[in-house]
């Protein structure tokens, strides 16, 4: 009989790992809390830097994991260590004895309403990066539809690099996402002024810098170095944004028809409860703690428990996929060794 491998989380990390494990002839079981596979990426429209439709990636993964056991709307109720395996009780009543548990629980999007000064959920014309992606997907959002869009602003680092929001980590993808979304908005509203308020621009990935240069040169996106301090609403419902233009050392303000907050990645709310079940360590940022942050990022400190993707910290899509493949390989050799 084949050993069970339980994958906790049916996002792109979980699916990519399942795809690889199936190829190796192993038996992955995906346990997904929500009613769909694909996690956050399934709700995204296009992916930087090549504007690949997110649905292509997610659709391909769903097709490739068709042979796996998949439980949707299911959570881990209980998990404990047996001699050389794990006993897992699912919320649907199914219980599984698994040789290996792969944790791919990903991240949660920072709740932008916690940054009260930005007025998300208070001022009409304030939205988040996720809201904007959904509008790209379904074209239905009262903040944009029926509004004359002449000026749009993006606020980088919302809830990231923010000790007051208890997230000192950089969310990694928001800089490039803001650049991507700024370009997309400029494409949709060519006459609109588009502003990006940033502290640093962290363009670390392949083709990111090209993307940024294109945003400046080809699209005339106006980058202002300074973190937005305060947002308010004027009498016609538009938002007024205040920041310091730190390159000039002067306060700056602008009235916008739409303000997009780049909500960052924070640790998944389920992190601590899953960690508690089998005494896994979490890091100071709340994400799962790897055995080693350089050489063993996908390994936990416990035998048979592996990680992939954003459950150990903010990751890009290609990083997540690479970790999932690497975890599958590690699991393969672990099972054959044991």
């Amino acid at each position, binding site marked *: 009989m084949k050993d069970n491998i339980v994958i906790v989380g049916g996002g792109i990390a979980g699916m990519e790992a399942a795809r690889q494990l199936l190829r190796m002839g192993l038996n992955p079981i995906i346990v997904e809390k929500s009613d769909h596979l694909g996690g956050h990426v399934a709700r995204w429209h296009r992916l930087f830097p090549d504007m690949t439709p997110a649905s292509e990636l997610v659709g391909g993964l769903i097709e490739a994991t068709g042979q796996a056991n998949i439980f949707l709307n299911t959570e881990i109720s209980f998990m404990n260590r047996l001699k050389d395996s794990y006993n897992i009780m699912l919320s649907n009543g199914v219980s599984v004895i698994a040789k290996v548990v792969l944790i791919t629980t990903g991240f949660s999007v920072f709740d932008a*309403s916690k940054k*009260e*000064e930005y*007025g*998300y*959920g*208070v*001022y*009409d014309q304030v939205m988040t990066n996720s809201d904007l992606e959904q509008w790209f997907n379904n074209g239905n959002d009262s903040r944009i539809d029926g509004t004359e869009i002449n000026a749009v602003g993006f606020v980088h680092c919302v809830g990231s690099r923010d000790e007051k929001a208890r997230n000192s980590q950089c969310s990694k993808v928001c800089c490039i996402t803001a650049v991507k979304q700024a370009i997309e908005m400029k494409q949709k509203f060519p006459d609109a002024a588009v502003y990006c308020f940033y502290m640093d621009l962290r363009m670390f990935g392949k083709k990111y810098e090209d993307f940024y240069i294109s945003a400046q040169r080809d699209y005339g996106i106006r980058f202002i170095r300074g973190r937005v301090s*305060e947002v*308010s*609403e*004027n*009498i016609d*419902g538009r938002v*007024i944004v205040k920041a310091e233009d730190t390159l000039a050392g002067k306060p700056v303000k602008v009235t916008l028809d739409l303000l997009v907050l780049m909500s960052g990645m924070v640790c998944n709310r389920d992190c601590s409860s899953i960690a508690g079940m089998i005494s896994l360590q979490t890091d100071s940022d709340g994400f799962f703690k790897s055995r080693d942050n350089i050489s063993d990022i996908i390994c936990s400190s416990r035998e048979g428990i592996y990680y992939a993707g954003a459950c150990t910290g903010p990751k890009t899509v290609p990083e997540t996929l690479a970790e999932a493949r690497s975890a599958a390989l590690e699991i393969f050799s672990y099972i054959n060794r044991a």
Partner: protein
Amino acid sequence: MIYQGKQKIWADYQKEIPDDHWFYVRSCIRQNFFPGAERMFLEICRNVLGKDFYETEHHTTCGGIAYHCDTIPQETVMTIVARQFALMTEAGYENYVASCITSFGNYLEILETWHEFPELETRIRELLWKACRREFKKPKYIAHASDLIYKYRNEIAEKAKFRLVNRRTGEPLKVVEHIGCHYSKMFPSKGVGGAEYPYVLCGMIESWGGSVIDYPERRHCCGYGFRQYHVKANRGYSISNTHKKFESMEPYHPDMIITNCPGCPYFMDRWQYVIAEMEGKTYGQNGYGIPVFTYEEVAGLVLGYDPWDLGLQLHQVAVEPLLDKMGIEYSPEDKYKGLNKKDLMRPELPGVLKCC
């Protein structure tokens, strides 16, 4: 504006406010600026609502103005405050309520500093003992007086003779609320509603029938800013800030402004005269200004007290247009009559700002 979004934030910032038995300390300056306000606070709490509010003639300034003007060291302010706490302890109270926002902030700041630097508290206890042989317990609760009126707002509404409603049109009056900076900006959790969208005055306005204006420069300082005003060379900064606020609220045509700080109503009231003289511009209807009130004065008006007993004749901006809107009767002849109808004489009327 999404009202429910604000409600969510307000629900996060509710603080415990004991219902009764308070040691009350007045502000240094409010009795000169708004002589009826503190009297009205005690009148409402003691006589209208039957609560126990104690005050003693031995209390002094908290030292806040000098502290914020950078003219006395922090140890001195702390010793002054320690003495106030000693007076409270001697009177047998644990709940301390300050009339002044800066005092309120000062007390919270000092308690927080003692929490972070316990050795400083020990030193202040020694200094107090050396200076006047007093000892103190720290208050169990510290409130600002507006927290209490906020707490009692619905009881006041039940007894109200007038509402913040335009008697002629039946529409709610449009009210600008202005919160003193030291109320919750230093310690958001210590203010009702937090620091970004404080609810303490909004709650009163809603309870008494008015509608709240949220304008772009709502969070901005009134312009007082201590050193901005007290150093004459800086007064341009003071009035520039006030001017910025009025320019921002102008499109909303506010009927009135309610504040909970000693300095804010003073500067928002008096600077309207100076702006009128400098710029020839007024912000109310027909050449009048926008009347500015303390929350106690508004509570007094709502409860039906005579406007001249509330000391409203000391405002620079005429309050009569608002009294007319609310349907409050008043005697123009009695405006400048003191106790026993003693003639107080009439002030000179300004050239630009229309006054009564």
